[in-house]
């Protein structure tokens, strides 16, 4: 909110607001995270953001934990905790309230209508996330090729995603990707 103010409060305000618009899960909020963290607030560079995404994907747990990494980069352990809770707690409490409410009035057609309407929005947002990440991480032909190969394998086979991440890491280590 105020650029010169307490970074913890800025983190909380930023991610609490962002989570309320993250329909379709954490991945659909990636473009907004990138816009705020890299372009607006300059918390991270493009490269650091792509690395944070990779670390969050490599780690166990929900993919939303990229906000933990952004929070850590801004304000250490306290920042990591503040960003995670700000991103997760308000919407979880909202879900709790809505679920109680819906269990009382299950005759309305609106839950089904809203759900159907949100499906294309949510997929469109995820596609945009993929686009932003392709732009930041697949900056060369070899990188684009590895990305495309991973997408094709994950789409056409039932391979455990961990193998693809491992293969990507090995190819990177071998210096294939520049």
């Amino acid at each position: 909110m105020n650029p010169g103010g307490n970074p913890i409060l800025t983190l909380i305000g930023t991610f609490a607001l962002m989570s309320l618009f993250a329909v379709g899960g954490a991945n659909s909020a990636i473009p907004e995270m990138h816009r705020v963290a890299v372009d607006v607030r300059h918390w991270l560079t493009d490269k650091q953001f792509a690395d944070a995404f990779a670390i969050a994907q490599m780690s166990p747990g929900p993919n939303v934990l990229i906000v933990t990494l952004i929070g850590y980069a801004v304000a250490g352990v306290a920042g990591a905790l503040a960003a995670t809770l700000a991103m997760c707690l308000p919407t979880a409490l909202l879900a709790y309230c809505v679920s109680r409410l819906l269990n009382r009035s299950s005759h309305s057609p609106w839950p089904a209508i809203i759900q159907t309407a949100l499906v294309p929005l949510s997929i469109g947002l995820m596609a945009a996330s993929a686009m932003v990440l392709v732009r930041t991480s697949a900056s060369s032909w070899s990188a684009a090729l590895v990305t495309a190969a991973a997408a094709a394998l994950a789409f056409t086979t039932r391979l455990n995603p961990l193998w693809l991440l491992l293969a990507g890491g090995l190819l990177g280590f071998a210096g294939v990707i520049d």
Partner: protein
Amino acid sequence: MPPDSPPAAVAVPNHLTSPPPGLVALFLAFARMSLSGFGGVLAFARRGIVDQHKWMTAEEFNETFALCHFLPGPNIVNFTMVFGSRFRGLAGGIAAFAGLLGPPVVIVTILAALYARFGEIEALRRILAGVSCAAVGLLIAVVLRMMLPLIRKRDFTALVVLLAVFIAIGQLQLPLAAVLLVATPLSIAIVFVRRRGAA
């Protein structure tokens, strides 16, 4: 609401073979699912809740998860709160929430500290570059898989809405909040009008 209705209005299904989990069981179960969940927790959550613990039937799981998917915020995190509170009220929700987030946050924070320290080491950079390419590839595959039902149903209106959101955010880089404030009511109106026409 009649005065004699149950306070939480979240009746625990009585046909389950397993007794409802306590707070510690909720915390531990979600911690375990979360720590197995490389590249997303959903598949492991379903396996744990439906197949292993039999705390919900497959249908109940689908309905509960669908609700969490159409609410804002990280789906699986929303799910923990709704799931836990169904059995043990708000405290149960918080126990499941803490189980899902607590252990992985500790791991990721340690990784963040290592990255802050060693992020400039060339080998680590190269590995991360490769991993992030693969991670983006996985994301593309998920998006394609999610589009298949719309393509099969020949739901062109939905595909146009999808494409419009993709261009607005991915290409034009407009702010998320503004795009959603326009696109959400529009999409709801489209579905409403089409259902009226079909009925």
